[in-house]
C-alpha cells in the first residue's frame, strides 16, 4: 500500500500513490474513443479475408449510396499517399512498398482494402458489408520455415525466396571456441508469435481544419512526435501543420510504438471530406492488424568445457516478419543477437538472422522486443548444458557470471554492460525460496510419483533505448520545465507514458530537485503542439532517459533561479534548497514563488539574463543500461491432465535506483504476467491459408486473475553510472526474466523422464503427452 507523504520529505524512493489515478478511477479520463468533435464522421475499414489474393475488382457503388455514407475510398484513391514507413535499416534490406490501402493484391488476413465513412458507426459498418470485392485467392504461406523451403509460395512475387534480409554478426573466435570444447549442446527453440493486446485497441480521430491548413490527429500512440513527422510525410503535409495528440493511452507494450496505415488513412479521409473522422479498432481488427510480437525459430549451439565454462554460442534466428515491415520490424531480431550471451562470460559468438516474409500481420516490438527471445534462448541453453554435464543450474550460472570487477564489461556482441552484481539477486532469490530445501522436497516427491520442478533464470537485459547511433529515430529524450509566475511548476516531457506512472515519478524527481510540494507540479506529455519534440516511451527508457532529461533541465533551471534569487537577496553567495534561495551570509531567504514572480515581472534583470524561468534539455545517453535479476519458479506438473501449478514465483530484480517502489512492483507484476502468458498460454496461430485461428479472446488465452500465481518480488540495487539518477529501467524485466524460469521449471519436473526441452506455450495437452511418454516435443 502507498504511504502518505509530508511536505518536507524527499520523495524519490517513496511508495507514493499515483497522481494520474483520480481521473482513471472515476471514469473521467479521455481516451481517443472519448473524443467527440462537431460533425464527427466514422470510418469502417473493409479488410482482406484471405491470406494472399489478387484483387480483380472492387464495387463500391452500393456502399456509397447507403444511408449516412459520406465517402468510400479504395487503394486507387490513396495510391499517392506515402507508404507505411519502416524506420529500421539493415544492409540490403528488401522493403516492400506498403500502401495504406491495398492496390491490386492483399498480403495478409486483415489487410485494409477500402474505407467507408458515414455519419454513424453503425451505418458505416452496414455500408462496409455492401462493398463487393472479387478476389482471386492465392496460396498463402504463414510459417517462416515453410516460407524458406524451395517452391514455397512467394509472399511478394518479386522476391520468390521470401527472404527480406540476411544478417551476420561475429565476436571473438567462434571456430576456435567450438574446436576447444569438451561438450557442445544444440537445441531448436521457438518463441511463438504473440498478440500484444493492449486493453485499449488502437484508435484515431483526424480533424482537418482546411482554412488553417492544419491537421489534428488524436491517436493512441507511444510516440506522438514520430507519428507527426512520419504521417505528415506520408500525407505530403508540412510537419508544422500537423498536431498529434496522444490522449490517455490504454496500454501499448510496443504495439503502439509504430506508425500505422490507419493513422495516415484517417488524415487522408478527413482532408478529403473536410470533416473530423473517427476510427476505433475492434478487438478482432486488433488481433489481425496490430503488430504481433516474437515469431522466432532459433537454432542454438553452445560450446563448453566439462567444468561448465561456456566458450562460445552459435545462434541462427529465423524471424517471421509477416508480410511487411512496420516501423522497426527487421531491427527486432538484431536486439536478440546483442543480448545472446546473457550475463555470462561468453567471449565468442556467431549469429545469423534470416528475416522471412510470411502472409501474416507484421511482427515488431512487443514487451521486451528481441530480448525475451534471446534470454529465453540462453537461459534454456544454460540449463540444457547443465543437464548434459550433470551440474546444478545455480552453479553453472555462478561459474559463468561476469564478475563485479569486470564492469564496465564489453560483450562479444559489441555492448558495454554498465554495472552489475549478478550473484546478488540470485543469492537473494535462493534465500527466499530455500533452494536446498526445495531440491530435497523435489527428490522426495519424485519417489512418490509427483512431478515437482524448480526452475530459474538469471537474466540480463538492455534498457534505456538508447543511444542515438543505435536507434533509428534518435535515442535521446527531452524535457522542459517551466516555473510559472506563481511558482507552480509545469514539466513537459517528450516521453509519452501510457500507464508507467511518469506523472508521478517525474513529479517526485522535480519536487525533490526544486524542494517544492508535489502538488505544485504538473507533468504534461503527448501533445506535439505543447511539448517540445520528443521520442516517446518504449524500451524501458521513460525514466532512465526521459527522467534524466528532466533532471538536467531542472539543474539548468535551478541555476537560473539562483541567479534571480541572488539578485533579489543582493548577494553573490546563495544556495537553493527546500524551495527557497538562501543567502549563505545572512541566512535571508526568497521563496521560489517570489523569485519566479520577479523573473517574469522583470522590473530588474540580472546581467546577461533573460526574463522568465524555463529550461529545456535534450539528453543524449552515452550508453544503454543493463538491468538484471533472478527469477525462481516452483511448479508441479499434474500427470493425469498435464496441468501445471505454479507453487511459488520469486522475482528478484535489479533495475538500479528506484524512484517509486510501488510503481516498480507493478511493472514487475505486469511483466511477469506477460511472461507467464507466453510460457503457458498465449499463441497467435495461423493456419496454412494464413487464417489467424486464435484471433479472438475465445481462443487466444489471456492471463486472467484466477490463473496468476502470487508473485513474491524483491530487489537488489546496483545503480548505473550512465545517468545521474542511477536508474536502469524496469518495464520489460518481468517479462524477460519469466518465461525461461517457467519452462526451466517444467522441464526440470520432467527431466527424469528424458525431457530436455519444451517449446512454449506449455499447453496441458503437450505436457500430458510428455509426462506420460517422456522425450522431447
Amino acid at each position: 500500500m502507498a504511504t502518505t507523504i509530508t511536505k518536507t520529505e524527499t520523495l524519490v524512493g517513496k511508495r507514493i500513490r499515483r497522481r494520474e489515478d483520480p481521473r482513471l478511477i472515476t471514469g473521467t479520463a479521455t481516451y481517443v474513443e472519448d473524443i467527440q468533435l462537431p460533425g464527427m464522421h466514422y470510418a469502417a475499414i473493409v479488410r482482406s479475408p484471405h491470406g494472399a489474393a489478387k484483387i480483380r475488382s472492387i464495387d463500391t457503388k452500393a456502399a456509397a449510396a447507403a444511408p449516412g455514407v459520406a465517402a468510400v475510398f479504395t487503394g486507387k484513391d490513396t495510391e499517392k499517399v506515402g507508404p507505411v514507413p519502416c524506420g529500421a535499416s539493415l544492409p540490403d534490406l528488401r522493403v516492400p512498398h506498403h500502401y495504406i490501402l491495398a492496390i491490386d493484391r492483399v498480403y495478409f488476413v486483415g489487410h485494409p482494402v477500402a474505407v467507408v465513412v458515414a455519419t454513424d458507426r453503425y451505418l458505416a459498418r452496414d455500408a462496409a458489408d455492401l462493398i463487393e470485392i472479387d478476389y482471386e485467392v492465392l496460396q498463402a504461406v504463414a510459417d517462416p520455415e515453410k516460407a524458406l523451403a524451395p517452391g514455397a509460395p512467394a509472399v511478394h512475387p518479386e522476391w520468390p525466396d521470401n527472404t527480406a534480409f540476411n544478417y551476420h554478426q561475429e565476436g571473438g573466435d567462434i571456430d576456435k571456441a567450438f574446436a576447444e570444447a569438451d561438450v557442445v549442446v544444440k537445441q531448436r527453440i521457438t518463441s511463438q508469435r504473440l498478440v500484444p493486446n493492449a486493453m485499449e485497441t488502437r484508435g484515431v480521430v483526424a480533424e482537418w481544419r482546411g482554412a488553417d491548413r492544419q491537421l489534428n490527429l488524436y491517436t493512441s500512440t507511444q510516440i506522438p512526435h514520430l507519428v507527426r513527422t512520419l504521417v505528415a510525410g506520408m500525407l505530403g503535409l508540412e510537419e508544422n501543420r500537423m498536431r498529434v495528440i496522444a490522449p490517455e493511452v490504454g496500454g501499448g507494450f510496443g504495439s503502439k510504438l509504430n506508425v500505422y496505415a490507419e493513422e495516415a488513412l484517417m488524415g487522408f479521409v478527413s482532408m478529403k471530406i473536410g470533416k473530423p473522422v473517427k476510427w476505433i479498432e475492434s478487438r478482432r481488427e486488433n488481433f489481425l492488424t496490430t503488430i504481433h510480437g516474437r515469431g522466432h525459430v532459433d537454432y542454438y549451439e553452445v560450446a563448453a568445457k566439462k567444468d561448465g565454462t561456456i566458450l562460445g554460442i552459435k545462434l541462427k534466428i529465423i524471424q517471421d516478419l509477416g508480410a511487411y515491415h512496420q516501423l522497426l520490424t527487421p531491427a527486432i531480431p538484431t536486439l536478440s543477437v546483442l543480448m545472446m550471451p546473457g550475463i555470462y562470460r561468453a567471449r565468442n559468438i556467431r549469429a545469423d538472422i534470416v528475416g522471412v516474409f510470411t502472409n501474416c500481420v507484421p511482427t515488431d516490438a512487443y514487451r521486451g522486443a528481441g530480448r525475451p527471445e534471446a534470454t529465453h534462448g540462453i537461459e534454456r541453453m544454460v540449463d540444457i548444458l547443465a543437464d548434459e554435464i550433470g551440474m546444478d543450474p545455480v552453479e553453472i550460472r555462478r561459474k559463468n557470471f561476469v564478475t563485479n570487477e569486470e564492469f564496465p564489461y564489453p560483450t562479444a556482441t559489441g555492448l558495454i554492460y554498465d554495472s552489475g552484481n549478478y550473484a546478488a539477486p540470485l543469492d537473494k532469490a535462493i534465500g527466499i525460496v530455500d533452494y536446498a530445501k526445495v531440491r530435497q522436497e523435489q527428490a522426495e516427491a519424485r519417489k512418490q510419483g509427483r512431478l515437482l520442478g524448480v526452475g530459474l533464470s538469471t537474466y540480463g537485459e538492455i534498457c534505456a533505448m538508447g543511444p542515438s547511433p543505435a536507434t533509428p529515430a534518435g535515442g535521446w529524450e527531452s524535457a522542459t520545465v517551466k516555473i510559472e509566475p506563481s511558482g507552480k511548476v509545469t514539466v513537459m516531457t517528450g516521453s509519452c507514458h501510457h500507464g508507467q506512472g511518469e506523472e508521478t515519478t517525474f513529479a517526485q524527481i522535480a519536487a525533490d530537485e526544486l524542494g517544492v510540494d508535489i502538488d505544485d507540479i504538473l507533468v504534461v506529455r503527448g501533445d506535439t503542439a505543447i511539448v517540445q519534440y520528443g521520442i516517446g516511451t518504449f524500451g524501458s527508457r521513460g525514466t532512465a532517459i526521459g527522467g534524466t532529461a528532466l533532471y538536467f533541465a531542472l539543474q539548468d533551471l535551478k541555476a537560473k533561479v539562483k541567479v534571480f534569487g541572488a539578485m533579489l537577496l543582493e548577494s553573490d553567495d546563495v544556495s537553493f534548497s527546500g524551495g527557497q534561495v538562501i543567502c549563505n551570509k545572512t541566512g535571508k531567504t526568497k521563496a521560489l514563488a517570489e523569485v519566479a514572480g520577479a523573473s517574469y515581472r522583470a522590473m530588474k534583470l540580472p546581467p546577461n539574463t533573460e526574463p522568465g524561468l524555463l529550461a529545456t534539455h535534450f539528453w543524449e545517453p552515452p550508453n544503454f543500461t543493463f538491468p538484471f535479476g533472478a527469477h525462481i519458479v516452483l511448479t508441479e506438473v499434474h500427470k493425469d491432465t498435464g496441468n501445471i501449478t505454479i507453487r511459488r514465483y520469486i522475482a528478484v530484480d535489479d533495475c538500479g535506483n528506484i524512484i517509486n517502489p510501488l510503481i516498480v512492483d507493478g511493472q514487475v507484476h505486469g511483466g511477469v504476467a506477460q511472461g507467464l502468458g507466453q510460457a503457458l498460454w498465449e499463441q497467435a496461430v495461423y493456419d496454412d491459408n494464413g487464417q489467424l485461428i486464435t484471433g479472438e479472446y475465445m481462443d487466444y488465452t489471456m492471463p486472467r486473475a484466477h490463473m496468476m500465481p502470487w508473485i513474491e518480488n524483491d530487489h537488489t540495487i546496483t545503480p548505473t553510472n550512465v545517468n545521474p539518477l542511477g536508474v536502469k529501467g524496469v518495464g520489460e524485466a518481468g517479462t524477460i526474466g519469466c518465461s525461461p524460469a517457467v519452462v526451466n521449471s517444467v522441464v526440470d519436473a520432467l527431466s527424469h523422464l528424458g525431457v530436455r526441452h519444451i517449446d512454449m506455450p506449455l499447453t496441458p495437452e503437450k505436457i500430458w503427452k510428455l509426462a506420460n511418454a517422456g522425450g522431447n516435443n
Partner: protein
Amino acid sequence: MFAQTFDYTAPKTLDEAVKLIGGGAKALAGGMSLIPMMKLRLAAPEHLVDLGRIKDLNYIREEGGALHLGATATHYDVESSALVRSKCPLLAETAAAIGDVQVRNMGTLGGSVAHADPSADYPAALQALEAKIVLRGANGDRTVSAADFFVDAFTTSLGEGEIVREVIVPIDSSGASYQKAPQPASGFAMVGIAARVKKAGGKVTEARIGVTGLTNSSFRATAAEKALEGTGGSPADIQKAAALVAQGADANSDIHASADYRKHLAGVYAGRALSAAIGRAS
C-alpha cells in the same frame, strides 16, 4: 461490434411471445451467446422477442417432488438459490461453473439450453439429472427429456415457433458433482462431466453420467453408468467406469485439445466427478 438492424418486442406474457416467435421472430433471453454473434454479424435475426419481461418465465420453485426452473432464471439465480442448493446442488454447482460473474448475472438457463452449445455446462447436469425440458409452442406445452432435447451442435428438438419454457429436475437423495476442464481462453467446457449416484447398502444402485464438451452434443455415458451400478463404488470401480465414459465417442478436436486428449480428460474428470458424487451419496 455493430449488429444489423432488427425489430424488437418485449412482451409481458408468454402467449404473446409465443405468438411472435410463431411468426418467425427470434427469442432473446440473456443474450450471452446471441448478442456476440449478432455483433460479429454471424447472426442477423430480423425480429427479436425479449423474454426478459415475462414474469411467468422467471421462477425457481418446488412442485410435486421436483424443481421447476423458469427459462429466464439466470445462472446466478440458480447458483445462489437456497432451494436449488439444498434440493439439487448439482445444478447450482454447474451454474457456478459457467462463464464469469457478469455472464452468470445475465445468462439464463433457458437461453443456454436452447442455444445448445456443445461446450456449454448445463447439458451435462441436465443429462445426469434426467431433466425434463418443457417447451411452449402455439399448441401449448410439450415435455422432452434432456436426452432427446440435445440433438447436435447448436441443434435441439425445439420445433418451429417453440421456446423453452422451463426445466424440471428431480429432487432425490443422490450424491452428485460437476467437474470441468475449462477451455483456457473462453472458460467453456473442453470436457465437463456431471455425475449423480445413489447408494444403498454399500452398493451403487443408480449412476447417471452426463457429458458435455467431448462431442457435438451432450450425452449420457450409459456404458460407464452400467459398469458402476452394482459395485461398491471403490476407487477401482470408479476408474473402470470412468474409462468407459469416452468409449466410442466421436470426440471434437481443436487447438486446445485433440480428440484423444479430450477423451482422456473425459476419463479423468469422470473419475473426479464420480468420486465426489459417491462421497456425497453416502
